[in-house]
């Protein structure tokens, strides 16, 4: 398999919250059309990494390029114009808007809503079609997550940043969500996914990186990482001795 064209390159970024150094020189790349997983324990800096890519945080040191163009320092509301769509941790739907209005907001960066996109999203998430007039705040957790992802798709993403899409969802729904992420990927959308659910994420991902207290400590293809003892011990809950 040939190397995919590079879409995103993160070089040596440091991100601080006041005196706390949450990222201490993180570097990685994401190729066009890939699914890349970002793993790590709580507080490792996964969310911080994604927020920095989507422009919600600025790196103190280092650079980020998207298609070779420097994007660190560009504010979040402009970055979406390049096709970087971020679905943040914890299903941030607009609770007092209908499902339909939420999806329309997803296309805010365009002057008008593309009805083909809407149709595609509703095909991907039939449950959203059934609940199109319902207030988003009254959807179940899984439905809200679907809506958050669907809303991001309305923005015609080139790079989709997903932060723990499976958090708090029942196994069946988790499997569904991952299946949908795979489908989205096959339509040409590059995905950078943060997950606690390492087994699922690595099965889906072409490659993965493991963060530990603000540094990347491990990288490899999904298959390599799945087989790695350290990953198995730390994230898959297996005893190393037993394997």
């Amino acid at each position, binding site marked *: 398999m040939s190397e995919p064209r590079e879409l995103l390159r993160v070089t040596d970024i440091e991100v601080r919250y006041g005196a706390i150094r949450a990222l201490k020189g993180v570097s990685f790349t994401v190729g066009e059309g890939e699914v890349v997983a970002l793993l790590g324990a709580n507080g490792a800096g996964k969310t911080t990494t994604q927020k920095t890519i*989507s422009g919600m945080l600025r790196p103190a040191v280092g650079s980020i390029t998207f298609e070779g163009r420097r994007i660190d320092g560009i504010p979040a*509301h402009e970055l979406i114009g390049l096709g970087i*769509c971020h679905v*943040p941790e914890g299903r*941030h739907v607009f*609770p*007092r808007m209908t499902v339909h209005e939420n999806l329309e*907001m997803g296309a*805010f960066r365009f002057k008008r809503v593309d009805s083909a996109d809407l149709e595609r999203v509703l095909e991907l998430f039939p449950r959203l079609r059934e609940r199109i007039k319902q207030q988003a705040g009254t959807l179940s957790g899984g439905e809200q997550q679907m809506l958050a992802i669907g809303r991001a798709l309305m923005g015609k993403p080139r790079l989709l940043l997903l932060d723990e899409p499976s958090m708090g969802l029942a196994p069946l729904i988790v499997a569904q969500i991952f299946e949908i992420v795979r489908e989205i990927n096959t339509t040409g959308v590059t995905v950078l996914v943060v997950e606690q659910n390492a087994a699922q994420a690595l099965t889906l991902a072409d490659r993965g990186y493991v963060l530990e207290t603000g540094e990347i400590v491990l990288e490899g293809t999904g298959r390599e990482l799945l087989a790695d003892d350290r990953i198995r011990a730390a994230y898959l809950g297996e005893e190393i001795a037993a394997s």
Partner: protein
Amino acid sequence: MHALIQGIILGILTAGVYALMASGQTLIFGIMKVVNLAQGAMVILGAYLAFQLFTSFGIDPFLAIPITTVALFVVGVLVQLLFLRPLRSDDRSELSLLVTFAVALLLEGIMSVIWSTSDRSINTHYANSSWTVFGYQITLVRLWAFLLSLFALGLLYLLLNRTRFGRAIRASVQNPESATLLGVQSERVSAIGFGLGAATAAAAGSVYGLLYPFNSGSHYDLISRLLSIVILGGLGSVGGAVIGALVISVSSAIVASAISPIWSEMTFFIVLLLVLLVRPRGLFGTAARGAI
């Protein structure tokens, strides 16, 4: 009984004007988490502008509204850009109290210089006309004021619910972070939102000037009433502000006719105290900020 019903009619008609002022204030809170203590001063500024347009050019205060709303919209945008935007977001809510109070004092000072501090009123030829319907007196000005307020609130509703920009405002109110990630420029929404809040103050100001005599210090009384209304309705909820205005105006009108007009002035503050004691989030402040 007759006096009571007459009081209720008056209360409902008055509620329209207060609803308009308060909806602007609660909108500003919803978007920016800013309690705008200058809203009363902006209403009075709107009243002075209507007064001036009437006395200098003979423009009817109702017809002056398109002019005064545009003028106050610009004032609102400037206040946001010059005074509020520089505040850091983590302590913006607290500092904004000081800043908007300073803006109120600044506006009061400017108005005192231009129009002096003596009472003004806008005396149109129809100021004292009234209709009698089933034995109840309905002042024409109040009826027009009420209808105009409904119309303005209707426009605000359509703007918020039926336009792309309105959707962006509501999105920012409900989840500013997600709105930004979808491309909404929060600074622009804030500026236009503040401008809209000020514009509602201008529309209400024209009407206020028709209904009551006013001077540059009238805003103190007004802002305390407005705060009672928006707190009762639930800060940030436009629907709540309308209901709050209705509840408070009607109850103070009932108190005025059943007990005494002196006590009616107190109704606002008694309602405010009760709300703060019993339900500090207000009527529609439950799951965050209600109706918007």
